């Protein structure tokens, strides 16, 4: 989307070189970069960033995809465990632990336009710390975020390659599931306990469509509807997708929603448990989440494709 990255670097390489050697007194020099972030804010960066703090797991995923993980000096307590993050200090982003973040002495803070409070930009601006909200409202936003992040962090080529690879993977999936004549109906649940879901315009509904599913909650205008059991029973989805975490998903669902025993999805065992880090963090890993859903929802499609490949 347009509001994401109109990241025209005004003086590209020249300003990069100039920026490397600049100091606050040489303010007449052109900035390293001027860009528009996911919230439509204009962000001016005087220097190439070397100490980046991510205050959204999605932003961390984008940095990783862009090949800039070595620039990170801190991530959030909500980030999932990963080997490449194990050495990094963790800070609270919700609620924002400003002191802990500033103590990491960042020269760039990366946030998500889907998760972080827009007003937090004022806090960092007051401290002269550039803050960029990475867009993740749509796939195009995510792709552009990867390229922009790679460019800022000095790994532009790697970022473009990663974005192209993800784009290609996504297109392959859409092409594969596009052959399904009548996509099965499905609902997505954030948790097996309370029926939080995603409404119209959510990235999760896009992922479900890529996976060849017909998301029933697209009818809700609210972004995070809490589904009523009556509605679920009446809708009778063919498939229930969720981020149910460890354990038996069916048992967890039925212990919290005993009346769902009569749903077709439950009776036929069509419950898809997507790994939480892949699906609940808007970002590049969502492509893998869509593939995970598609493989579980349409095994016959993949079997025939693999047979044909052999």
């Amino acid at each position: 989307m347009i509001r994401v990255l109109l990241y025209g670097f005004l003086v590209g390489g020249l300003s990069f070189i100039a920026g490397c050697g600049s100091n606050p007194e040489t303010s007449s020099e052109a900035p390293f970069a001027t860009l528009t972030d996911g919230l439509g804010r204009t962000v001016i960066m005087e220097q190439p960033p070397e100490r980046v703090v991510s205050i959204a797991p999605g932003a961390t995923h984008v940095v990783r995809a862009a090949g800039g993980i070595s620039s990170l000096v801190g991530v959030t307590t909500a980030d999932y465990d990963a080997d490449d993050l194990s050495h990094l200090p963790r800070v609270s982003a919700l609620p924002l632990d400003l002191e802990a973040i500033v103590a990491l002495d960042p020269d760039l803070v990366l946030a998500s336009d889907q998760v972080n409070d827009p007003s937090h930009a004022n806090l960092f601006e007051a401290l002269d710390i550039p803050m960029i909200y990475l867009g993740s409202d749509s796939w195009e936003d995510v792709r552009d975020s990867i390229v922009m992040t790679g460019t800022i962090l000095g790994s532009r080529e790697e970022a473009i390659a990663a974005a192209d690879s993800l784009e290609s993977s996504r297109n392959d999936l859409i092409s594969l599931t596009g052959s399904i004549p009548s996509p099965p109906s499905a609902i997505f649940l954030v948790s097996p306990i309370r029926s939080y879901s995603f409404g119209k315009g959510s990235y999760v509904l896009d992922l479900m469509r890529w996976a060849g599913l017909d998301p029933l909650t697209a009818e809700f205008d609210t972004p995070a509807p809490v589904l009523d059991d009556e509605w679920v029973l009446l809708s009778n989805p063919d498939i229930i997708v969720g981020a149910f975490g460890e354990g038996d998903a069916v048992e967890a669902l039925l212990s919290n929603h005993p009346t769902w025993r009569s749903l077709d999805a439950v009776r036929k065992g069509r419950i898809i448990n997507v790994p939480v880090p892949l699906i609940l963090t808007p970002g590049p890993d969502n492509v893998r989440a869509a593939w995970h859903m598609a493989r579980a929802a349409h095994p016959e499609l993949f079997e025939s494709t693999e047979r044909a490949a052999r």
Partner: protein
Amino acid sequence: MTGRGRHIVIILLVASIVPVLGIGMAFGSVSLPLGFTLQTLVDATFGNVPADGNRLADIVLQIRLPRTLAAFVVGSGLSMVGVAMQALVRNPLAEPYVLGISGGASAGASLFYMGLIPTFIAARIDISLAAFLGALLSISVVYLVARGGGRLSVSRLLLAGVALAAFMAAISAFVTIASEDANKTRAVLFWLMGSFHDITWSDLPLAATVTLLGGLVLMSLSRPLDALLSGEEPARSLGVRVEGLKKGLILLSALVTGVLVSISGAIGFVGLIIPHSVRSMFGISHRWVLPGSILLGGIFMVLADTLSQVMLPGQQLPVGIVTALCGVPFFLMLLRRTNYQFK
């Protein structure tokens, strides 16, 4: 209102229970044909249980029916506790939610649900008992703070209630925010607003029993409660064991509120609106106020819950939002009165 008039109103309230429960059964998050709902209920009444896998019958029998009955029970119970609290403190502004009792019950239940009660205690109690203990703690503190020099200060009572409610809400908020289990956090945050979405048949027996027994006990105490309204000394002179009565009311209020909050979350202002409305019809005699409040409270809660379901079709809306929207203006109106004492 004359005795005959009171009888007529009580009969009308009793007669309206079935139609109101019918409204609760007819309207829900989704639209079902009325004939189907009725037929399913009739069939179930005569032992014709629908076959497994009948989703529409499940909506009627496993979701709406226990939910509607639970709404009636909780509405009745909270109204009844409101009457008891108001008699105890001799002021019509008292109510489990306003006085922090519901908040205490919520905090107790939240601590239990989030697994933050020490194991050696948690292993010996359940969520209802945890809620009861939280409620008992709250009401005891509020009462002790408000009482001084043998008198109960209304302003101190309300302020202590507000303070305890805030304190207990802070505990509930802390345990939910501090929890590492996001799923439980989401569930508790929703439940704290008051909701009947998770009601199952297994929730009903204890709640109904406690409410029924509590109602019977309070009805048997109608005369002492009437005497208490005129003050502790006059009540003593009439032979009422005031201290025992007060302790009994505190225990009973905490027990009923704790059990009800453990199944529905904290639903506010019902115990304020309903007794006040009933008194405006019946006067202050508990012989009439108690049954009137029990009946009207149940009816009000069923209607409020039905409204909460149809406001956002297909989605859950906590009923506590509806009762607060009705109750807060009512509470403010009462506060505006220069003399909020029983007439």
